[in-house]
């Protein structure tokens, strides 16, 4: 290309020089200048033609041929608009499903936060002795790891992610999700502020507790109207004054790109805004500091692992009581790396792979359909090709021509697919998550999605184009030219039947997987959650955001309950530290009297919830033995607990646990007496086995830094209660933030709850029905084409006395063969792929016979119907017409 430009650039000059010389020569020979010039031009010839000829030398022949091919292809496609429309729409559906899905996978697994050189950044994770992974470190551990890893890391920052705080500005109190970060956090990530300054490193790595706040970009826009004068503004975080010093850049949402961090505070402020933790800097047992490190230039993550391992083992040996680690490991920085361990990462990847495979199947089905259409056209055009070959068209040239046609189809399909995919992902992004957590569903179409779509389209063009192109251009010219079009197609019909068998098989697979998901969603919906979410309303409050201390918070809650219970329409009202399937889950280590740990078994560590009296009535969790909590169960009385069935079975072996005792590992001075046993109910996940779980009175174990949820059972709708309940709360505490106001049923639709299943089922179902539609088109197409190709034969048979029913059977049999073969293929494929979905299925086996049979019958019925229509048409053929055909 560059050579061509250079050569042509100087052409004008060369020609001018040439003529100039000739002129001078002529002058030297004694001509007058005018005449000399005229002669020179005459001798040179037509200057512009010479230029054109020369330029032509450098043009690309293939480019011109491509344009020629494209023009021809466009003409061919315009000549059969029906075929073009069906083919483009089919491809658009296939590519659209793929791009939409890819944009989701891209969001979950590929899109890295906008930081400098993300491949140099790693997060650090501890592998526990018990085999689990933990990325929350205490501050002293963080400091030790930072100080000991200087050989491989150029910088190490610490951050507490997703603290739920309250921000008061101009008299309004709003929840804000914050990160507490060390001073080098932004510098390490290479992020520049959109406005003002960032939190800056303090000398000597001391714990920075300057009262400053950096706002997240989106929060600044929504809560401060994007006001640039926000810098220097005094606001309160949980009642403590801080100054806003800066705004994070647009698009930077913190280190987990799936969640939007709304504010950043210095790490040391964690000890101020929650004043109970004044031993934050020294307490090695507690802490949730995440470690983000930048590798030294030239150091690979792999070579940092041994160093981390040594540090981990050293610290574990030094502080065996708190650092129960097997090892430390670095995790490459990704969209979710900060929040995930290798195990859940793998789950995400498997699920992503599953859906990409399913979407890929839809695309393959679409390709098969289009290939089928093209094959039909190819056999029709075999003679055209033969003629073109006979007059000197090289075979490669003809193949290129046909491939250009399919490429054009694929490109049109690609454009349509991108539009469909955009619509689909817009829709998915707009799904309301009913969550207070600022989860960003941002299925954008970035360059990766476009690259993906275009490579899918190019591959499609090759896939659908190559076989028909080879077929159309194949063969002995002489034979082809003498054969009739009719006989030339028998081979291609067989090929097409095989394609349709694959197609029916593929769509059956999609249908079965869709069926499994839908069945599992049904199971989840009907699943015995163990509690009754109907008619329960949730109001979450966070006393510590208003600056309350423990005593004030407890006093407030104590006064609140009677007032709410007195409201008209309220059956029962109770408080709980956590709600099922919510964002927060509590758990604690216990010492259980009389329970012998088996070898290798870790100490009892059940999940728990702190609740007020009437909780079990509000949630309708049946009490099997013992009693409910009472107002008299308070700090001064005997500490008590209610446990679930699994916990009773596990630690008291099914004996009556009432009256037995245990102690919190970190509070051995208060023995806890078990006063009741309740039925198992879902707490953290809607699936899986039940785990040991217990309930304790909010009055006895309450962490005022956590939000607390008021739950009430009422037959009135949320809209009718909302105002009264909120005003009752705020009559007691005017600045109390009330959020997550929703029905318990809506609260279940979180990522922990039903959302994932609804999402998965919806996605799988849409893919399944897409596949079904494509299969119907395919079966109908091949059978009716086959029938039309055999019109002549049918005519002869009928003329010789064949009954219409026999003809019907003959054509129908072809459909039967396709459907039968397809079902076998489909069941095998589904059995293979459904194993991947295992984790997402609830109460339904990967090989659930009911789903397999129903899906097969459904597909068979529809496919046979699709082949019955052309068979009937064939039956009605008039022998005379058929014989005169052609």
């Amino acid at each position: 290309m560059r050579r061509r430009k250079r050569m042509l650039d100087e052409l004008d000059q060369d020609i001018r020089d040439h003529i100039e010389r000739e002129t001078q020569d002529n002058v030297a020979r004694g001509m007058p200048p005018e005449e000399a010039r005229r002669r020179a031009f005459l001798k040179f010839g037509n200057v512009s033609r010479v230029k054109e000829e020369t330029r032509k030398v450098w043009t690309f022949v293939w480019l011109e041929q491509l344009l020629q091919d494209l023009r021809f292809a466009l003409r061919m496609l315009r000549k059969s608009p029906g075929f073009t429309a069906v083919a483009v729409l089919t491809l658009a559906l296939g590519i659209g499903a793929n791009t939409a899905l890819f944009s989701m996978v891209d969001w979950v697994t590929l899109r890295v936060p906008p930081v400098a050189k993300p491949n140099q950044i790693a997060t650090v994770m501890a592998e526990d002795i018990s085999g689990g992974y933990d990325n929350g470190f205490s501050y002293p551990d963080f400091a030790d790891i930072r100080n000991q890893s200087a050989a491989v890391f150029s910088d190490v920052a610490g951050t507490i992610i997703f603290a739920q705080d309250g921000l008061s500005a101009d008299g309004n109190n709003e929840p804000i999700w914050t990160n507490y970060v060390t001073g080098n956090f932004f510098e390490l990530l290479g992020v520049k502020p959109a406005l003002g300054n960032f939190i800056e490193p303090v000398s000597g790595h001391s714990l920075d507790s300057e009262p400053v706040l950096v706002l997240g970009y989106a929060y600044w826009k929504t809560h401060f109207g994007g006001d640039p004068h926000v810098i220097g503004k005094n606001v309160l975080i949980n009642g403590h004054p801080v100054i806003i010093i800066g705004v994070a850049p647009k698009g930077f949402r913190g280190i987990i790109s799936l969640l939007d961090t709304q504010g950043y505070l210095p790490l040391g402020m964690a000890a101020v805004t929650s004043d109970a933790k004044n031993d934050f800097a020294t307490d090695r047992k507690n802490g949730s500091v995440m470690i983000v490190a930048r590798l030294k230039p030239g150091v690979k993550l792999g070579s940092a692992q041994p160093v981390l391992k040594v540090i981990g083992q050293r610290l574990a040996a030094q502080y065996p009581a708190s650092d129960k680690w097997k090892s430390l490991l670095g995790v490459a920085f990704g969209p979710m790396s900060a929040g995930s361990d290798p195990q859940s990462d793998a789950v995400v990847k498997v699920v992503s792979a599953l859906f990409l495979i399913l979407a890929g199947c839809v695309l393959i089905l679409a390709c098969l359909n289009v290939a089928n259409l093209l094959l039909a056209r190819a056999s029709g055009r075999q003679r055209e090709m033969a003629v073109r070959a006979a007059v000197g068209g090289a075979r490669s040239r003809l193949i290129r021509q046909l491939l250009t046609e399919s490429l054009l189809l694929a490109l049109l399909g690609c454009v349509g697919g991108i539009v469909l995919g955009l619509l689909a992902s817009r829709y998915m992004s707009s799904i309301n998550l009913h969550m207070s957590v600022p989860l960003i569903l941002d299925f954008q179409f970035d360059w990766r999605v476009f690259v993906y779509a275009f490579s899918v389209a190019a591959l499609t063009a090759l896939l659908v184009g190559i076989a028909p192109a080879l077929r159309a251009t194949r063969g002995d010219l002489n034979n082809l030219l003498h054969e009739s079009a009719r006989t030339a197609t028998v081979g291609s019909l067989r090929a097409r039947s095989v394609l349709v068998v694959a197609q029916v098989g593929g769509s059956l697979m999609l249908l079965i997987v869709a069926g499994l998901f839908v069945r599992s969603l049904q199971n989840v919906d009907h699943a015995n959650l163990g509690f009754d979410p109907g008619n329960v309303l949730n109001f979450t409050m966070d006393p510590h955001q208003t600056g309350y201390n423990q005593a004030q918070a407890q006093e407030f809650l104590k006064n609140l309950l009677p007032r709410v219970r007195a409201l008209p329409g309220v059956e029962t009202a109770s408080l709980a530290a956590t709600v099922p399937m919510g964002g927060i889950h509590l758990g604690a280590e216990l010492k259980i009297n009389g329970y012998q740990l088996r070898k290798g078994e870790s100490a009892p560590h059940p999940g728990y919830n702190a609740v007020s009296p009437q909780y079990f009535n509000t949630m309708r969790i049946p009490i099997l033995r013992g009693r409910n909590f009472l107002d008299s169960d308070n700090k001064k009385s005997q500490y008590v607990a209610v446990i679930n069935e699994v916990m009773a079975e596990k630690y008291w072996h099914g004996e009556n646990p009432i009256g037995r005792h245990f102690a919190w590992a970190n509070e051995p001075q208060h023995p806890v007496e078990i006063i009741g046993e309740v039925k198992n109910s879902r707490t953290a996940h809607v699936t899986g086995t039940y785990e040991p779980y217990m309930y304790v009175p909010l009055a006895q174990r309450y962490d005022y830094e956590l939000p607390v949820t008021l739950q009430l059972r009422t037959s009135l709708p949320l809209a009718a209660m909302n105002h009264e309940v909120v005003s009752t709360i705020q009559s007691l505490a005017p600045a109390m933030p009330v959020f997550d106001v929703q029905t318990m049923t809506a609260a279940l639709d979180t990522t922990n709850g039903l959302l994932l299943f609804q999402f998965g089922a919806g996605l799988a179902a849409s893919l399944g029905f897409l596949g079904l539609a494509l299969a119907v088109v395919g079966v109908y197409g091949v059978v009716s084409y086959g029938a039309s190709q055999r019109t002549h034969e049918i005519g002869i048979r009928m003329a010789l006395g064949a009954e219409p029913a026999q003809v019907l059977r003959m054509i129908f049999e072809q459909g039967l063969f396709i459907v039968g073969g397809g079902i076998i293929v489909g069941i095998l494929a589904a059995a293979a792929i459904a194993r991947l979905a295992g984790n997402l299925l609830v109460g339904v086996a990967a090989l659930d016979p009911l789903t397999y049979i129903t899906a097969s019958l459904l597909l068979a019925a529809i496919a046979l119907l699709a082949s019955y229509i052309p068979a009937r048409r064939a039956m009605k053929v008039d022998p005379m017409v058929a014989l005169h055909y052609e």
Partner: protein
Amino acid sequence: MSTQEQKRRFELLQGTLDLLILRTLLFGPAHGYAIAKTIEFQSDDVLQVEQGSLYPALHRLIKRKWLSVEEGTSENNRRAKFYGLTAKGRKQLAVETTKWDSIAGAIARILRPAGEEGES
């Protein structure tokens, strides 16, 4: 039809012109004008080539890598492009010359068939 014929004649001319250019450059690189003059001179003005058609031919030969181009200064101190034979071009000249000789020989035999027969 007439364009078709023109094209054919041009092609015929083209092959000849290519050969003449290669032949001219056998004695060393030269600039465009010098090549045109040499062809004119050596053929005693019999081959009246339109000088302009030299340029497409030169570019064609460069694209085939039979010629190389260098910037240089001409005898009267002007910047000019000097075209020279590449190794490939040299080989091609031998091939083309042989081809030309056999064609010329064949044409000569056709034009004087009696004389040839008489000699054999």
